[in-house]
């Protein structure tokens, strides 16, 4: 289990390759990368605030739960904080397992949980102002399937 909370950028491709190399015995790797979306070309930057200490605990807890539910060879979560430009990578998860079904399910579980249970808050800054991103009802609903 590799969990990183950092301000620094990361290279998604490099991380995927390193993750795959670190998961011997796996037959499947699933990865997801979230990027700063610039709907309409208005976004100057995004700022991500987090709760140091609780963030790491929450991510560890979510990854541990995934490891208990599915037979995973390895799990990786990287989540950034601080100011981010449109198009930059915000976060990624990767899961490795012997067969693909477990890796797919675990990656979706990780994403659903870290969207609304890991203490991160996004703020969007445009030329005309700034606004905190509101939590979507569907993100809370998504947890019910697990």
């Amino acid at each position, binding site marked *: 289990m590799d969990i990183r909370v950092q301000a620094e950028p990361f290279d998604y491709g490099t991380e995927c390759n390193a993750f795959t190399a670190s998961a011997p015995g796996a037959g499947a790797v699933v990865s997801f990368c*979230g990027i700063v979306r610039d709907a309409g070309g208005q976004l100057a930057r995004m700022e991500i*605030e987090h*709760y140091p*200490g*609780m963030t790491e*605990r*929450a991510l560890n807890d979510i990854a541990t739960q995934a490891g208990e539910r599915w037979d995973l060879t390895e799990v990786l979560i990287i*989540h950034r904080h601080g100011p981010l430009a449109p198009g930059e990578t*915000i*976060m990624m998860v990767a899961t490795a397992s012997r067969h693909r079904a477990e890796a797919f399910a675990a990656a979706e579980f990780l*994403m659903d949980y*870290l*969207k*609304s*249970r*890991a*203490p*991160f*808050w*996004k*703020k969007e800054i445009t030329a005309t102002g700034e606004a*905190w*991103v*509101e*939590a979507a009802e569907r993100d*809370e609903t998504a947890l019910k399937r697990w």
Partner: protein
Amino acid sequence: MTITILYFAWLRERIGEPRETLQTEARSVSALVDELRAKGERYALAFSDLAAVRVALDQELSDFDAPLDGVREVAFFPPMTGG
């Protein structure tokens, strides 16, 4: 007892401080919120709609009915938007 209170995102902005230390006899989170609301308009505004506020006790997600026995750190924040 002395507790540390942390605020994040718009709660931090409305209250104007990221953290404070408070001497309190509040037995539950909701009693603590009542005490904070009485501190002034900024607090009353920040805690005007508790449906929009989440709470963590010693870095574990909790709720407003929870007791404060032995708790050292209380954090208030809006629903999380990670990912």
